[in-house]
């Protein structure tokens, strides 16, 4: 019985929508003679819709045929497709217009899949807005790789349209502009932001590679990516600090080639063979301290491979408990917070998964209900066609009432579900944001590592200096070469000292950023989750009411069969 489920469903879906549409259209009685042959999408089910004339008794007033408009029984005496139920049914149905993205902060009609486009500092700047749209993907050719032999590699560009009234973007009251960008540009933007905004919860960018499913074609992939890019850019625009960054502005506004440097991540470019080995690797041991400017950057993304190796060594020694680092993460509050964030992330993952399952179950409920309705529609037609006895006609009528209710209920389930998806998407969105938090925490940890590394270098340098001084003091008159060495070491120590101070300042700065970001995130998350819950619940209530009224009507229509003795 169950084996052929897939076949049936696949075959049924094509005609399901058609049948339902026809059945519920007020001006068509699918049980009457054929006047629907013009609708070519019905070719498969035509035989059901153009039966021979039927001896339907006149008492069989079909509420679905054009007249009569007033039915004696049933809800509000309204014979439209469904009875308007009270209260929430009407409230819920338009929270998703675009206005919510522009202005945010009105909670009643708030929410969309890009939930975070609220201005968090809602107190003063409610009139600021940035609205970003990603559209019209186009294929373009990379002319630099075109040659006589081969066509250049092709890539897709997307049109990025921005509407904003932020002052940085020029022309006071509001401006609109567009640029074309390719995915590689987005990667660049993300990398630049990661460097400039250490400690911030930066929304993660869309993946480079995409999980390929068998059914996914080029078009689907491009569409998926377009949606993902839009989401990403909107999240950036929602971030109170990042939206004002140069990087974002340049990305959104400057036409032509993106004037941001591609990633300075030397290590990965080395793997591409695109870079010469930096001379630090071959330079002498004593030479080349750490460039002060670069200390303010994470080792990983920077030019300094030597520093990378040193910090790696330091972190290993930290982990293996060799020598205790001079500065330890002793901020208990931070550690607790980190723990909490991990717990939260875990629960969001779980809730997000259960939300997926819930959505699927709601969908299937709607589908099966619809299929049941259709099966009864067919039965109704069949009994009417073959009717010999009145009892058959009566039964056909009963079935029709049931079928109508089932088809309507099925619609409501599916509408309910598409709204539910939008609400519960908040959970999915926060998965990405939790990653951003982890990123911010990681910035802090890596900054701390830099400090630790410098401190331990400092102490080893000082140790060497001491030894040299002790040794040279035994030689009378001084040891020219040794004295020179001592001088060099002292120079290095001074440099390292400076670097250490910079690193410490950077670390403190990042700590600040972390803290304010986490605060902001907590606040926003609370509001977003609240909205999610509210939207979800209002939806459930509204649609449950609608579904209830549909079935109440069907129960009334079959009330003569009520056998429960009171």
């Amino acid at each position, binding site marked *: *019985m169950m084996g052929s489920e897939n076949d049936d469903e696949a075959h049924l879906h094509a005609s399901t929508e058609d049948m339902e549409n026809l059945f519920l259209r007020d001006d068509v009685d699918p049980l009457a003679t054929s006047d629907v042959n013009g609708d070519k999408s019905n070719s498969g089910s035509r035989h059901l819709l153009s039966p021979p004339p039927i001896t339907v008794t006149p008492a069989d007033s079909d509420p679905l045929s054009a007249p009569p408009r007033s039915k004696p029984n049933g809800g509000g005496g309204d014979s439209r497709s469904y009875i308007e139920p009270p209260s*929430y049914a009407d409230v819920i149905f338009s929270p998703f217009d675009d206005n919510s993205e522009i202005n945010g902060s009105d*909670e009643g009609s708030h929410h969309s899949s890009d939930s975070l486009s609220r201005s968090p500092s809602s107190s003063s700047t409610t009139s600021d807005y940035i609205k970003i749209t990603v559209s019209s993907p186009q294929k373009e050719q990379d002319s630099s790789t075109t040659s006589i032999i081969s066509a250049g590699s092709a890539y897709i560009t997307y049109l990025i349209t921005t509407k904003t009234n932020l002052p940085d973007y020029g022309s006071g009251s509001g401006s609109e502009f567009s640029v074309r960008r390719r995915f590689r540009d987005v990667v660049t933007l993300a990398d630049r932001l990661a460097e400039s905004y250490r400690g911030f919860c930066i929304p993660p960018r869309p993946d480079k590679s995409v999980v390929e499913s068998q059914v996914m074609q080029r078009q689907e992939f491009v569409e998926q990516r377009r949606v993902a890019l839009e989401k990403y850019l909107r999240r950036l625009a929602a971030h109170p600090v990042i939206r004002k960054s140069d990087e974002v502005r340049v990305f959104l506004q400057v036409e032509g080639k993106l004037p941001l440097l591609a990633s300075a991540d030397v290590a990965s470019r080395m793997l591409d063979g695109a870079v010469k080995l930096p001379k630090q690797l071959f330079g002498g041991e004593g030479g080349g301290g750490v460039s002060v400017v670069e200390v303010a950057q994470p080792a990983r993304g920077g030019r300094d491979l030597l520093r990378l190796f040193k910090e790696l060594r330091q972190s290993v020694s930290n982990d293996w408990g060799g020598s205790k680092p001079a500065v330890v993460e002793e901020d208990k509050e931070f550690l607790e917070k980190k723990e*909490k964030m991990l*717990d939260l992330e875990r*629960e969001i993952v*779980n809730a997000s*998964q*259960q*939300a997926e*399952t*819930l959505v699927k*179950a*709601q969908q*299937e*409920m709607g589908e*099966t*209900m619809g299929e*049941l309705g259709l*099966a*009864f529609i*067919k*039965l109704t037609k*069949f009994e009417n066609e*073959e009717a*010999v*006895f009145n*009892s*058959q006609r*009566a*039964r056909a009528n*009963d*079935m029709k*009432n*049931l079928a109508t*209710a089932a088809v309507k209920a099925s619609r409501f389930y599916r509408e309910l579900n598409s709204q539910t998806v939008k609400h519960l998407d908040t959970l999915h969105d926060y998965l990405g944001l939790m990653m951003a938090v982890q990123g911010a925490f990681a910035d802090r940890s890596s900054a701390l590592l830099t400090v630790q590394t410098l401190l331990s270098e400092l102490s080893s340098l000082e140790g060497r200096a001491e030894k040299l001084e002790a040794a040279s003091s035994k030689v009378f008159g001084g040891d020219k070469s040794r004295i020179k060495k001592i001088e060099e070491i002292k120079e290095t120590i001074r440099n390292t000292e400076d670097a250490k101070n910079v690193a410490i300042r950077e670390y403190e700065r990042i700590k600040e950023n972390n803290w304010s970001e986490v605060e902001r995130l907590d606040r926003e998350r*609370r509001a977003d*989750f*609240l*909205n999610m*819950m*509210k939207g*979800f*619940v*209002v939806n*459930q*209530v509204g649609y*449950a*009411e609608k*579904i*209830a009224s549909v*079935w*109440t009507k*069907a*129960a009334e229509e*079959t*009330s*003569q*069969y009520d*056998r429960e003795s009171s």
Partner: protein
Amino acid sequence: MESNSIDQSQTRNVMQSPRSPSSHPFLSASVTDPVKLGNGVQAYISYRVITKTNLPEYQGPEKIVIRRYSDFVWLRDRLFEKYKGVFIPPLPEKSAVEKFRFSAEFIEMRRAALDVFVNRIASHPELQQSEDLRTFLQADEETMERFRFQETGIFNKKPADFMQMFRDVQSKVSDAVLGKEKPVEETTPEYEKLKHYVFELENHLAEAQKHAYRLVKRHRELGQSLLDFGKAVKLLGACEGEPTGKLFSDLGTKSELVSIKLQKEAQQVLMNFEEPLKDYVRYVQSIKATIGERATAFKQHCELAETTKLKEINLDKLMLTRSDKVGEAEIEYREIKAESEEATIRFERIVKRMNEEIVRFQEQKTEEMGVAFHQFAKGQARLANGIADAWRALLPKLEAASSV
């Protein structure tokens, strides 16, 4: 055979429920108290069958016996043999899946179906007179077992036999279509229409029943997913501070509540909607079996009529030639003629019965399905309203929290 006596006896208006105990004849039975007996592979369920009646043929106003599924099968088979043309009420299927056989759900559904089965027989004007019914309702367990084992001889109709009959009917149709031997088959337009109706109806009903069964599953799945979602949401709330944490906790609790409502409704849909549809399908299959019987009877009637004619012709020939074989031939002819007449009577009785049965069947089904539809609609309305109420209770708190 008691077939003749049934023809001639008037069908008494036997009631199902005792209105005025003394006057109106009534007969009602109920199947209750399923109990598991035996061990391992031999294990089976026994039921208590309670009969209440004032009919003189019965041993008293009330009688209780213990019966098992195969006893019901025996009764059905006997009635099928003796009351050709009547749509014998169908039995619930034998369950193939071992594990499921003793689940509470299955046992209850079977009990209910067996109860319906017996009552349908008791309220059928012809079947209620059956001696086999009396045996079934009254005989002690040992006698019943003896009767049941006798079946392995003459009357044993295994499910395979029913299948064979269906195949016969179907192969007759396909033979005709493929233009094989000239089919000995009724071809009156009315009867053709009826046969076509029955076969088509089964297909439509089977599809409806399939979707009804799936709908039960969907209720359960939705219920389960809401349960899991509720739990997940509660855990999430535990990570959040106030007021979000409490709200999540409330949301989770409501979700679990709604889940329970869905599970309950799933059970109702199974028993009050899907089962009646399954019963409808079984009934149609029983009709198909009767169609098979009619075809057999028709064939016999035709063949015997043919043979009788031939014998008559042969007899006339012999009489003309004044052969000494005339006497023999005359006896043969009379015998065949009597058989032929009996076959015709049997066939015609089947036709008459079927005509009456069809009317009953259609009316009965309209009533039963009407009840099923009504209950289904009521159940769905109740469920939806319950769900709306449950979620609605959360709104004041959510409103309060978002206006802060």
